[in-house]
């Protein structure tokens, strides 16, 4: 062991070792990306399976149908009659219907403010008390008045009402069933589920008058289209990229295909060949949704409270009618009703690439961790290098420079076991940039929506000029007494990358996709360095950095969305909507994506750009240092 250690110590001095880390870092990135691309292959992904035995999906007869079809049509007439009424009038009528069925009804007001807009509404919900239960557990059925695309959820509502009436007749429920009807899909359920867990802000959201037990699962029905459908689209992304237990998705897919003969699809992949490229596409779409961290449907708000939830959307033209979807919900509820304890057996961290194929966290996490590790490797490398500079450089040359006494003393000292580093400037630069990140976060979360696009444009311009400004300020401040050396830049970069690597690896445990995406976009920061004397390289690199700056990426994302997304809109409007959504997510859903962008990625980008623009020391000094590089 001592011999091994001493060899390691000798190795540490080997100059060849110091050349290695940048390549190692590059290798980490390449392997990380390649790893992700390998995942859709059969060898790396697994078939899904039900791991909670109590669920028994598709093992019961479902009886919803027959005369319930007439009930459904009747409710649809009722719903149609209410279509253009106000929220309160609708809820009055719904309350009557619920009371007619014999359920307890509660109503809840909420008001949210975000980006200068006020959103308010009133939820109505009804509790069906379980004949065989003791009100300690409950399952939730959600039918929002409008879905996320602002379409009137006509059939979904009628179906939910018909199902509730039907469930009332059965005596087999051991968990309460709660039917929640929020006026919209974005904040109604959030207000309701916050209040259900007493985690609401009482000034914005009213408390719930009646409650039931712990929520075990939630199914949202989103059925605006008329006529028959072909397959069921399962939406499962939660806020901040959290996912429901895989067993829930598996059960629904299992019941839909095994019992009902319906197809099912994920991530808007209406046609899925189950080949490599379709799998990859599904996975990447899932990752993008997770990475954005927004609510994909009314179910999303349940997931942060550890309530497994999904939204079912009938899609396509086929031969299944509303009763089929009703039976699917019934079957799923019967499965959830069987649960003896909260869903915990199966995975919470997974990437789905087909309705029956997934990879679990152990398999995919290394790719994000490798990307994060590349920053850490560079940080450690730069730290070591900053301590070695004086030892390796030809000391005679350094000695002959103006500040003779000081440097020679420094060199004497640096011949010792440890070289002295000037930490104050790099530390304050990095800390300053980190704190500066609070500024865009605050601005973009508190700007009224009509000003968002102009403010964003101004900020992008400022963002373009910030690095040169900082670089200039640094040099002007230090020019008189002590010039900025390469060591300062190395240390700044080292600290900044250390923080970035740390934030991303912590984030990867919470939201893999976001960590991966931000990590990937930040990879050019690993290879920044001052180019004293080579202006072309410097400007080329700064151009590259500006190409992957947070502002450019937001603008590009918005432009892509405007081009390929639903609905016609210009880029300016798309930017406004993206920023509005971000502010809305921050204020209402507790979505932390803006925080990651402005307080993790942006500061690192800023420091990286300052490093590229750096002019360490005098020109001659720069030359001697360059040999070291």
């Amino acid at each position, binding site marked *: 062991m001592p011999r091994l250690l*001493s060899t390691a110590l000798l190795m540490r001095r080997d100059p060849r070792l110091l050349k290695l880390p940048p390549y190692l870092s590059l290798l980490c990135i390449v392997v990380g990306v390649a790893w992700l691309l390998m995942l859709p292959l059969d060898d790396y992904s697994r078939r899904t399976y039900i791991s909670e035995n109590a669920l028994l999906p598709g093992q019961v007869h479902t009886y919803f149908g027959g005369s319930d079809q007439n009930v459904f049509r009747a409710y649809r007439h009722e719903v149609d009659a209410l279509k253009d009424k106000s929220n309160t009038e609708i809820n009055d009528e719904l309350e009557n219907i619920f009371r007619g069925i014999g359920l307890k009804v509660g109503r809840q007001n909420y008001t949210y403010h975000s980006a200068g807009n006020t959103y308010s509404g009133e939820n109505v919900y009804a509790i069906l008390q379980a004949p065989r239960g003791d009100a300690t557990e409950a399952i939730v059925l959600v039918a929002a008045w409008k879905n996320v695309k602002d379409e009137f959820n006509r059939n979904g509502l009628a179906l939910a009402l018909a199902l509730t009436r039907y469930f009332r007749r059965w005596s087999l429920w051991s968990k309460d069933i709660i039917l929640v009807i929020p006026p919209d899909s974005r904040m109604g359920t959030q207000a309701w589920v916050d209040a259900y867990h007493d985690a609401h802000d009482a000034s914005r959201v009213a408390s719930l008058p009646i409650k039931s037990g712990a929520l075990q699962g939630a199914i949202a029905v989103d059925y605006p289209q008329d006529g028959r459908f072909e397959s069921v689209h399962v939406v499962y992304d939660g806020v901040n990229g959290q996912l429901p237990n895989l067993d829930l998705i598996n059960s629904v897919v299992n019941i839909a295909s095994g019992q009902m003969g319906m197809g099912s699809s994920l991530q808007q992949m209406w046609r899925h060949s189950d080949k490599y490229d379709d799998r990859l596409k599904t996975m990447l779409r899932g990752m993008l949704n997770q990475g954005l961290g927004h609510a994909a449907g009314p179910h999303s708000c349940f997931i942060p409270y550890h309530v497994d939830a999904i939204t079912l959307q009938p899609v396509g033209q086929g031969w299944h009618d509303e009763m089929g979807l009703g039976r699917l919900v019934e079957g799923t509820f019967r499965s959830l009703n069987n649960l003896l304890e909260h869903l915990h057996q199966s995975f919470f961290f997974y990437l789905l690439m087909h309705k029956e194929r997934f990879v679990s966290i152990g398999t995919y996490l290394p790719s994000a961790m490798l990307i994060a590790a590349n920053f850490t490797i560079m940080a450690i490398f730069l730290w070591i290098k900053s301590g070695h500079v004086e030892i390796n450089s030809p000391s005679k040359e350094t000695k002959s420079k103006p500040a003779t006494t000081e440097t020679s003393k420094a060199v004497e000292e640096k*011949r010792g*076991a440890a070289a002295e580093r000037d930490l104050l400037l790099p530390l304050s630069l990095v800390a300053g940039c980190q704190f500066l990140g609070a500024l865009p976060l605050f601005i973009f979360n508190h700007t009224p929506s009509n000003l968002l696009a102009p403010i964003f444009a101004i900020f992008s311009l400022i963002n373009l000029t910030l690095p040169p400004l900082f670089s200039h300020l640094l040099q002007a401040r230090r020019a008189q007494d002590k010039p900025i050396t390469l060591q300062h830049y190395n240390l700044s970069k080292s600290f900044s990358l250390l923080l970035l690597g740390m934030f991303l690896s912590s984030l990867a445990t919470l939201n893999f996709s976001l960590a991966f995406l931000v990590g990937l976009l930040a990879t050019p920061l690993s290879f920044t360095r001052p180019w004293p004397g080579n202006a072309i390289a410097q400007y080329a690199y700064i151009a590259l950095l500006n190409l992957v700056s947070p502002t450019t990426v937001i603008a590009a994302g918005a432009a892509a969305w405007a081009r390929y997304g639903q609905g016609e809109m210009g880029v300016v409007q798309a930017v406004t909507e993206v920023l509005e959504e971000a502010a809305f997510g921050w204020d209402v859903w507790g979505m932390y994506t803006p925080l990651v962008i402005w307080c993790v990625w942006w500061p690192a980008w800023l420091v990286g750009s300052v490093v590229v623009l750096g002019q360490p020391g005098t020109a001659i000094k720069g030359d001697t240092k360059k040999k070291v590089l």
Partner: protein
Amino acid sequence: MNHGKMHLQETAGLYATAAALRLALFTLFPALPDLLTGRVEISTPVTSFKRLQEGLFLYNHNVSPYDGGVYHQAPLLLPLFSLLPDPSAYPIFTYVLYIMVDLLSAHALYKIAESGEAASSRLFTSARKDRRWSGYVVAAIFLFNPFTIATCLARPTSVFTTCAILHAVAKAIYGTPFTAMLSLSFAAYLSMYPILLLPPLVLLAYDRQHASNRILSLLQFAGTNVAAASVSLGALFAVSYLLTGSWEFMSSTYGIQLTLNDLTPNVGLWWYFFIEMFDSFRSFFLGVFWLHLSSYVGGLSIRIRSQPLAVVTLLLGIFGIFKPYPSVSDASLFFAMLPLFRHVFPLMRYSFLTASVVLYSTFLGPAFYHLWIYYGSGNANFFYAITLVWSLGLSLLVSDMTFAVLRDEWEVERPEMVGKEIRQI
């Protein structure tokens, strides 16, 4: 006294900034103090502000505060806090109290740093003693350390212990051993473990006696000081007895530290170990753990006899890792003492590694706790793994500092070896 005024003038700006920052955090983010109070990393069963509220409520309604088994803190805190207006209605008074305590600690630290004791004690003068930070810098590092700020916002009662320990050290350095002993007994009264600092503190006070009335015999000096500490501790116990009317507080405050009945998670190593433990082995391992914790006192005091302040610092680091209910506030006390030893920093070998490990665990800890408690997708092992990493980081720092201090001593003894590579065997 004149000198003291000068200190204040010099540091008034610093203290005002630190106080303003804390006050701003308290008032601009009103939800932040309560959020931090609930964090297990900061509030332990024996220091939590929430539990103090509970004890206070019982005390104000003439029920024994120790009924209900929630309150495990010293009885004398109760009259102090019942003098303040209700913290939920007028929180500002509590905030001001905690800010004041932080500033007092910083001031004690300032005085310790200004004395220069860290680099040149009676028996030892480091060759690098010119390389040091002024008291201003040391106090600033303490006051603007995020751990200190978080501790102040979360309002655990450990800040009083921190303040008492720092004042004990400062008084010992400035040649007033009895005040130092009084201060230490306050610290020990509040959270028991500081009593282990008695030996190095007596040595420190012995080394720093005023020339005018100096006691030459170490035994005699130690005897009087230990007696003084015991008397003041006894007095504190007596007052507590009079206040609560029974000796129940002994078992509730100190007994719980000895027997570890409350297994709420914290950043330390004990809770998980004793959750897993079979009951029949419990008392044995409690003995082992306590023996381990106290065994460092004798060894370090003897080995680094010439630098008692270094011993105190190292012990504070060790307590921050191995005591039954450690929290971030113990680490912040250790981090506060560390800059006093600026002169040995160049000799430390793992500073980057330590800093990264501590930083990583600071961010991964809450993330994993969240995965365990809120998402339900992780389990207790996640958080425990991170507390292990945190402890690893701190112990690396402690051992690295021990190495640096010893190497510094060695280089004075053997000047020809300065700068040579050495190897530990």
